């Protein structure tokens, strides 16, 4: 059943109003990034006279966003690859392998999925200090892998639980080991589940703030969100420069979201929260 046009129109109006409430602040910030300081004073939604990239260049070099960007890319890549790999193995263990102690292991891992980062930040700081890695990006990578495998394990185990047993049985009869079954039979059909996991962990890691704020003190090791927060403290009044910085931080997650939104929304609607 479809709506006749007469009924569609008011529904579109409602959607447009609520969509504009979301988009107008983002659009305003976006255009500000191309303006000069005087143009910003003229009116919040006036268009820049010249779409110049000067502010981006200044944020990139003077604001050291080039360094923050590099750090964010390294941390996010390392966390995504290792978390997804480890979670695939552990999810396989939970969902498809004999696992004595499963009944108490599951809640043990579930706890990590529900606790807030505030619950672990203080000991993590001391732990990194003990390891002597507070001056390296490892101090950001290792804890975030630990926190991500909790969700990842549950996400992947529910995938493996729902794969047909005939498939793996057939593979075993053909002489596949468990390891071969995982990588040659199951991994190819796990692509949608893995893609969702990749985009979610990427976004969480890219946007993570508290750990990155506390666990590294060296300015050269800051990630983009922390870099932007300090930048904001320094250039409070310079809206165009801050807008440019904000866009550099937000653009990669927005791009990935737009490209993979089917996977992304499926994960979020499935209750994928990071506590």
């Amino acid at each position, binding site marked *: *059943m479809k*709506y006749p046009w007469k009924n569609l129109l008011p*529904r579109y109006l409602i*959607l447009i109003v*609520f969509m504009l409430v*979301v988009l107008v*602040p*983002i659009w*305003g*910030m976006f255009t500000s990034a191309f303006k000069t300081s005087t143009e*910003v004073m003229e009116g919040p939604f006036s268009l820049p006279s010249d779409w110049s990239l000067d502010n981006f260049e200044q944020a990139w070099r003077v604001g050291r966003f080039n360094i923050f960007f590099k750090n964010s890319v390294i941390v996010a890549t390392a966390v995504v690859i290792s978390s997804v790999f*480890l*979670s695939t*193995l*552990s999810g*396989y*263990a939970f969902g498809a392998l*004999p*696992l004595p102690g499963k009944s108490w*292991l599951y809640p043990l*891992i579930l706890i*990590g999925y*529900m606790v*807030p*980062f*505030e*619950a672990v*930040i*203080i*000991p*993590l700081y*001391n732990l990194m200090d003990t390891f002597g890695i507070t001056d390296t990006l490892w101090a950001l990578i*290792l804890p975030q*892998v*630990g926190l991500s495998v909790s969700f990842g*394990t549950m996400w992947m185990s529910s995938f493996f*639980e729902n794969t*047909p*047993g005939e498939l793996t049985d057939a593979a075993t009869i053909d002489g596949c080991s468990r390891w071969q079954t995982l990588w040659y039979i199951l991994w190819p059909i796990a692509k949608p589940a893995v893609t969702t996991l990749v985009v979610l962990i990427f976004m969480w890691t890219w*946007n993570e703030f*508290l750990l990155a*704020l*506390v666990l590294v003190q060296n300015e050269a090791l800051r990630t983009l*969100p*922390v870099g932007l*927060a300090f930048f*904001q403290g320094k250039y409070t009044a310079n*809206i165009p420069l801050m*807008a440019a*910085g*904000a866009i550099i*931080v*937000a653009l990669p997650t*927005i791009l990935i*979201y*737009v490209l993979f939104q089917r996977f*992304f929304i499926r994960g979020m*609607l*499935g209750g994928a929260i990071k*506590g």
Partner: protein
Amino acid sequence: MANVTKKYPGESRWKGWWYLLPALLVYLLFTFLPILETIRSSFYQWDGFSQNKVWIGLANYVELFSDPKFHNALRNNLIFVIFYSLIPILIGLFLASMLSRRPIPGFAFFRTALFLPQVISMVVVGVIWRWMFNPTFGPINSLLRQIGLDVFAISWLGDFTWALPAVGSIGTWVQYGFCMVLFLAGMQHIQDEYYEAASLDGANAFKQFIHITVPGLRSEIAVALVTTIIAALRVFDLVYTTTRGGPGETTMVTGFLIYRAAFTNNRIGYAAAIATVLTLIILIISLFIRRYQQQGSEEST
């Protein structure tokens, strides 16, 4: 669902452990043991540097429960629950019921836009809204002046009365699209026959909403509650970038209190006690809502 967890002939029954072990070790070291260590620290007095770590039993908790700053932070978190959870869920339910059950052509486009605040770093959201609320050239005050409401063109984030609702409404902005998309997706699964039968019985739109739509969305509402309440209770990034808890303590929240106690005031034990209480509150609420969700699915089957 096939039972694929059986062991194969000749296979060790510990096989799964080899696959679990790497993830489990990383998890134990960087998440689970730190949680236990936080709980342990909450019974000590410690500045974070010295060797001198003194066991003081429950003293941190006793102090915590009579600390007006903690009460204030907790109260602000509860007010954030209204802005992060209650209002977005009500907006989401309202919109979902207005838009109704049939697919709307082009909805994917709206969905993309409505979901956008969910993917943006909260620091960026903070930067955007500090500009929106800027007293001199921010869009909100420019608009108020243009329509002659100059008296309301105040310094929103610096105002003792308005800072908290101002920061809270940013949370509403972030969450409502998520709730709306969640509920609309859920409504596709409610069968038309229920509504048709209710119409025949003479139930009006409001009654249909209360008796069919809301129960039908039980599981989606549970997901929305868990997600948004937890977001409201652990809010940190947004407060850090917009107000740092000010002016005074008017926007101070528990997450920021932990950060300040641990890393500004060097009171590790006290910060750990706040973190333990916050974690407990979050665990209890999520378990409670999950139970409500499970009860719902048992009843409907």
